[in-house]
């Protein structure tokens, strides 16, 4: 697969590998990062395929590894894959809803060499957690968090923030402290896929964002040295776009359940990339030579105002998926940027969400499940 790497920009090796083992998940979070039509991708890589992928990516330089999904615990070969990853020298992370986790499995995964576990909790109260997750899961999630801690893993708690739970920020922080989280990821919803569909119902107002952020910042100082807080910014209220994926094809490699290699986990939404499959090509071929991974490398692809922008090496023009979803053209500047002539679409989205919040009858959330997914297939 030669021909797509023009070598104008030196290609750095991958350092982070996200292994999406499956799209199967017992939860139904309405902001899920899986593709809307996930139900149409039925094939899953075999254990041997995953082992080969791990070996090849490690050889290139990947070292941070996330086992994700869907719910990765639904794969019965997870301990085998964790062990293989440890033998290869990965630093591995299990990104889980906690559903299906038992103390026995926590011990088994520790013995296999898993480095840490990230447990997601949807809210600080049972009622809201179970509503957002679409599953009665709150009590079990808290129990899993305690067991993770008990067995000596660094405990990473992840809470996705949106309009339905942003008012719970003080309680969320108190819950993280009570559970003894070593790391707390406060991830403001990024509006792709399912979250894009549900945006009017999930996007908080600027005032809500600012209030929640101030509370989180103040808390951060009181737990310095004990708990590390990762705050994923809500880019709709920023002036400049995020440096998405640290630059396209520079750092991150995602492998979807069916073996499709993606420069970011949303890249399946973009047209014409011809994302390669690990069943057909080696990871080295995919990373260095494929059309998809070279598509937005460097600066040659850029249009104005990015092309001549003195900040282009800082944010790489922002997110390609966001440019595509909001402007219809993936080559445009990320409209979050105030220099973009399409910046107005972000303001419109904010206004639309504000109106929806004031509406007498809110339309219902579209939950992430196979039935709804088939509507997008």
């Amino acid at each position, binding site marked *: 697969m030669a021909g797509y790497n023009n070598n104008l920009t030196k290609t750095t*090796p991958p*350092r982070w590998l996200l292994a999406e083992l499956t799209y199967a998940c017992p939860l139904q979070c309405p902001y899920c990062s899986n593709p809307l039509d996930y139900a149409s991708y039925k094939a899953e890589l075999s254990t041997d395929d995953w082992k080969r992928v791990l070996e090849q990516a490690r*050889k*290139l*330089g990947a*070292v*941070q590894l996330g086992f994700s999904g869907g719910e990765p615990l639904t794969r019965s070969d997870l301990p085998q894959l964790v062990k293989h990853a440890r033998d290869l*020298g990965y*630093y591995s*992370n299990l990104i889980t809803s906690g559903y299906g986790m038992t103390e026995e499995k926590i011990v088994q995964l520790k013995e296999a060499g898993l*480095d*840490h576990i*990230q447990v997601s909790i949807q809210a600080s109260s049972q009622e809201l957690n179970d509503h957002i997750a679409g599953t009665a899961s709150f009590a079990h999630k808290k129990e899993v968090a305690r067991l993770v801690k008990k067995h*000596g893993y*660094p405990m*990473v708690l992840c809470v996705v923030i949106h309009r339905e739970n942003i008012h719970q920020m003080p309680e969320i922080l108190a819950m993280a402290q009570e559970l003894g989280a*070593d*790391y707390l*990821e406060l991830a403001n919803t990024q509006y792709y896929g399912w979250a894009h569909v549900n945006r009017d119902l999930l996007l908080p107002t600027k005032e809500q964002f600012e209030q929640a952020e101030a509370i989180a910042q103040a808390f951060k100082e009181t737990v310095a*040295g004990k708990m*590390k807080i*990762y705050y994923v910014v809500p880019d709709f209220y920023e002036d400049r776009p995020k440096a998405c994926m640290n630059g396209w094809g520079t750092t991150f490699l995602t492998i979807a359940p069916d073996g499709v290699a993606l420069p970011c986990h949303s890249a399946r939404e973009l047209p014409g990339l011809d994302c390669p499959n690990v069943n057909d090509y080696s990871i080295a071929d995919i990373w260095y030579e494929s059309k998809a991974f070279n598509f937005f490398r460097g600066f040659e692809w850029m249009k104005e105002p990015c092309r001549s922008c003195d900040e282009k090496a800082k944010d790489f023009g922002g997110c390609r998926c966001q440019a595509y979803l909001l402007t219809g053209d993936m080559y445009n500047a990320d409209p979050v940027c105030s220099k973009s002539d399409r910046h107005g679409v972000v303001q419109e989205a904010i206004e639309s969400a504000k109106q929806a919040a004031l509406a007498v009858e809110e339309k219902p959330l579209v939950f992430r499940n196979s039935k709804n997914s088939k509507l997008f297939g």
Partner: protein
Amino acid sequence: MTLNPQLPLSISRTHRLQWEEAQQKFVILYPEGMVELNQSSAEILKCCDGVHTLTDIVGDLEQKFATSGLHNDISAFLEVALNNGWIQQ
């Protein structure tokens, strides 16, 4: 947090120090992050084995590199490492 020169130093429970062949450098790995180390930082962190103290480490490295006067540099770096949570006492 201040470094206690009398107490042994070790890599944090939640972190791992390892050599990366592809990058030809040592890195520190931790949840959601990675720091690529230059040679002198790596030499110092390799000494944080749960046994050696700051004083030991200065002595060992001065001997290894046949030099003296490393105390302030090593102490300043370890202070940063402690505050970043890379090492613990």
